[in-house]
């Protein structure tokens, strides 16, 4: 049941940017997460993989302040914190880029990059400064956009995602949570984001936790990979110490032994239905 305690999960050497101790989350009778001990070092990129329903999104939502854990705690730089809300987490430097991008399609790029942080001259928006800063931000992290004056609606999915990431990075994010940043993106579009993550890793001033589906992409940009299965971290390795084969093997084993979980779920479903019929999920 309990994942083995890895000595690298403690703060002996240096406090981690984010660490969780024994996080657990239940929704009614369903245990979404149990005993999650996760560690992300400063400037490290952690890839979070796992099947649908394994608990990845719940974990990210706890770290982003959206859900509160039932057990365990979160530590930032070794200090325990209670993430009360998304705003509170953000004030502590945890920024999340969700799939439903928080960009406004009808506003230009430079406005989106400064949303809710617009520089002003008196009551008026300092558009000149916003444009200049936007250009600098985008050049800085190597995002190519036709013009900062372009309406976001006219950009591609990858460019939009990149702008959302750029906005988070420039809001003084210390920890960046990317919820499936490559979902619904072609290879070229995904490449924009992978390049961006790689670039941020090289700069090393922000720690990144990203949910990824494509294992090859994990090895492409992540320092470390955590595999979530049924609410538990079943693998925590540096990417150079593991391989796509090992991950696939673990997931295949999950499917082979899946009967146990499926039966449990079927029982649960029949309980909530109260009709005694076995759940169709089995």
């Amino acid at each position, binding site marked *: 049941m309990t994942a083995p305690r890895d000595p690298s999960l403690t703060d002996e050497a240096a406090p981690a940017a984010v660490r969780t101790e024994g996080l657990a989350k239940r929704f009614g009778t369903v245990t979404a997460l149990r005993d999650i001990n996760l560690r992300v070092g400063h400037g490290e990129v952690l890839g979070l993989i796992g099947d649908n329903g394994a608990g990845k999104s719940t974990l990210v939502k706890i770290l982003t302040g959206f859900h509160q854990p039932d057990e365990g705690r979160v530590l930032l730089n070794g200090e325990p914190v209670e993430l009360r809300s*998304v*705003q509170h987490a*953000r004030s502590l430097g945890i920024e999340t880029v*969700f799939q*439903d*991008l*928080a*960009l*406004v*399609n*009808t*506003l230009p790029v430079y*406005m989106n990059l400064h*949303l*809710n942080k*617009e520089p*002003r001259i008196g*009551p*008026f*928006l300092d*558009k000149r400064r916003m444009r200049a800063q936007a250009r600098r931000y985008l050049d800085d992290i190597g995002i*190519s956009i*036709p*013009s900062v*004056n*372009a*309406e976001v*609606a*006219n*950009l*591609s999915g990858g*460019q939009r995602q990149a702008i959302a990431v750029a906005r988070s990075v420039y809001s003084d994010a210390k920890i960046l949570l990317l919820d499936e940043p490559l979902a619904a993106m*072609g290879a*070229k579009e995904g*490449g924009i984001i992978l390049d961006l993550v790689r670039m941020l890793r090289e700069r090393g001033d922000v720690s990144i936790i990203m949910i990824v589906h494509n294992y090859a992409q994990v090895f492409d940009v992540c320092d470390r990979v955590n595999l979530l299965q049924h609410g538990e971290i079943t693998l925590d390795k540096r990417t150079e110490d593991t391989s796509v084969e090992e991950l696939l093997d673990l997931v295949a084993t999950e499917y082979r032994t899946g009967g146990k979980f499926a039966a449990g779920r079927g029982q649960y479903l029949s309980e909530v239905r109260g009709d005694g019929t076995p759940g169709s999920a089995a």
Partner: protein
Amino acid sequence: MADPVTSDPSAADAADLDATAAAARVRSTGLRGVGQNLMRLRELSVVLVTAVLFAYFAIGQGSAFTGKDNLGNIANYTSAAAIIAAGEVMLLVCGEIDLSAGMTFAMTPILMMLLHNNQGLPLGIALVVALLVAAAFGLFNGLVTVLLRLPAFITTLGTLYLVHGLTLKVAGSHPEPAPTDGTFVQVFASQSHWWSEIVWAIAIVVVMQIVLTSTRWGAYTIATGGNYLGAAEAGIKVRAMKIRAFVITAVFAGFAGVLDGIHTPQSFDPNAGGNDLMFTAVAASVIGGTALLGGSGTVIGALFGALLLGILQDGFNIKGLSVNTFIMVEGIAIILAMVLNTQLTRFRRGARAE
């Protein structure tokens, strides 16, 4: 229509990632240019149509149309609708609408006169109190819509009847005479100058256009209508933005009622304005280039939309065409403007690189 760069097959087929990215950049730059021109065109088109109509009636009808008295008629028609539209555009941009504005238009001046005549308040103070009551109805619209999550269509439909009934009740169904002289009248749309109401309209429209395009208030209004959840996530107080738009619409509607009553009939009719005026303001907004979907809009466009409708109605009147024809044309103009807007938006968005 087709952008030559987009249809260049060699760019699309280029296997090299950099080359494709560069091509995409060129492609979107080209389309962005077109898109921005169309954006400008959207305001420009209503200005052009207005100018053409003006020229058409000016040439055809001569001084009957271009005379000072007639320009005054057009200005009057335009002013009230444009002032209300200045508020409605803010509401439409953040994805809401106020159907009760026409009734607030009638209520506010009557309230002002009752406070002045019965309570002995000076006109200026009576005006402020009456506008505060209008603002309270706007606040009510906003709170019910935003906090109780009622569609604005329903909330403000209710307020429409509520305000109308209230106005008839306190006014006893008969018009209140408006003040005809004094500083108050000189400041607020004296009837001795044909332009005295429209300068107020222009001033309000210009201020609101600047608010919409160059202040946080405007940017957050656009963000609220463009991506409600996303804007909220970015920390924008989206509900406050909507409530503010409801309040400003009600205040503008009330203020327009005061100006209009002083300027034209010199009396405040409890049945003035009403739904006809409210829909004219919404029509002017739509014709001017504001989508009902939220996220974009133009106050200047709405002023020209109102002017266009004013010129049409007045021109038809002078030509001796029936008002019924005007109403039909107004209907077609609304649909045409809306089709044009959505098609232009689709054309701009369709340019998005895949």
